[in-house]
């Protein structure tokens, strides 16, 4: 009994070190799962760590730790969203008056152009269906392969690829609509000589 306990404690200690390494990426993923709501993302991440501490979520080595952790974060965020639906509806009016979360996190020295670009990009991301947004985030933001993204999303690799391709296409279309304002500034940033 005592030996089992020691093993558990050791596992938690080891896991804690690994979780700390993945903390930043986990927070980014939690943000994406929670519709860029920082408070909700923190709450979800806390709940995930709580699940790990209580042994409700156990890593059995079936997938990589990152994939497993991201799947737990995704499930927790989904269930948390379902639970707090009424609360969110009540606060919806209040949230509309708040500034966009992304604009809160901009560095003080960020240029107007960058802020504008990011706002447009995030609006385009928000307009995507959840699965497509998840696929794009996991591949582009978290640098996961399509197979790993499929594992996190609990879908087949074919389905993940479809979400990824469709998401990319829609995102291109959305960004294309604002090409006059966005495209020129982006090209100017990428290739200053061309503009």
């Amino acid at each position, binding site marked *: 009994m005592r030996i089992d306990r020691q093993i558990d404690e050791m596992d938690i200690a080891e896991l804690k070190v690994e*979780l700390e390494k993945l903390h930043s990426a986990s*927070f980014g993923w939690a943000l994406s799962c929670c519709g860029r709501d920082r408070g909700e993302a*923190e709450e979800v991440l806390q709940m995930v*760590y709580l699940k790990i501490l209580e042994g409700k979520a156990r890593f059995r080595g079936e997938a990589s730790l990152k994939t497993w952790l991201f799947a737990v974060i995704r499930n927790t965020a989904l269930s948390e969203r379902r639970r707090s639906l009424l609360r969110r509806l009540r606060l919806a009016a209040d949230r509309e008056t708040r500034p966009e979360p992304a604009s809160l996190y901009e560095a003080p020295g960020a240029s107007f152009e960058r802020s504008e670009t990011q706002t447009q990009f995030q609006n385009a991301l928000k307009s995507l269906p959840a699965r497509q947004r998840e696929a794009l*985030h996991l591949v582009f933001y978290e640098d996961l392969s399509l197979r790993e993204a499929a594992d996190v999303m609990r879908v087949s690799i074919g389905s993940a690829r479809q979400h990824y391709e469709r998401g990319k296409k829609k995102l291109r279309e959305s960004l294309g609509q604002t090409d006059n304002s966005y495209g020129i500034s*982006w090209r100017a940033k990428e290739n200053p000589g061309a503009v």
Partner: protein
Amino acid sequence: MELAGEQKRIQALFSELRLADEQTVPRFATTWNHAQARTVRPARAFNLSFIAATALLIGALVSLAVWSKYSQPNAPAAVAGTMTASGIVKAADETPVTPSLLDHKSSRHSSISRASRLAAQRRAVMLAINQRAARDAGVISSWESPTSAHLKSQNDELLKSVQQLRENADELKSFLPNKPK
């Protein structure tokens, strides 16, 4: 070529977003400690609710025991003489009791008499129900249809009597010309 450019553009936008997010990531230790603190809280809440539930259960058991003790008809002698044929209850405490005995066993006696009274009332109600059921059964069995008079005729007697067929047959045999061999 254009697609690759678009891919790069999306990649760049995501990288930018990640950089912005990394500046606002809460400290791991803070999040972890908050989670650890939350593991303690539910345990305390469980203990409180467990204690409350246990107290409630014990209270319910005690009240049940008390109720069952006082509601049991535990004086058969008293109950025996409580009922008459008409279902009127005679209280058990009508039996002569000396004042000294009454003083000594007043509390017990009152509980017994109450129990016996309840039992007697129950029996009286049952008896009344049975009597009424018997009366109703009699009424039903003697009931006659208002149109039954129309079904009667003068030839009813003929239909009720059975013909002596065998005797008639013997008489007929005597008239037959050829007897069977």
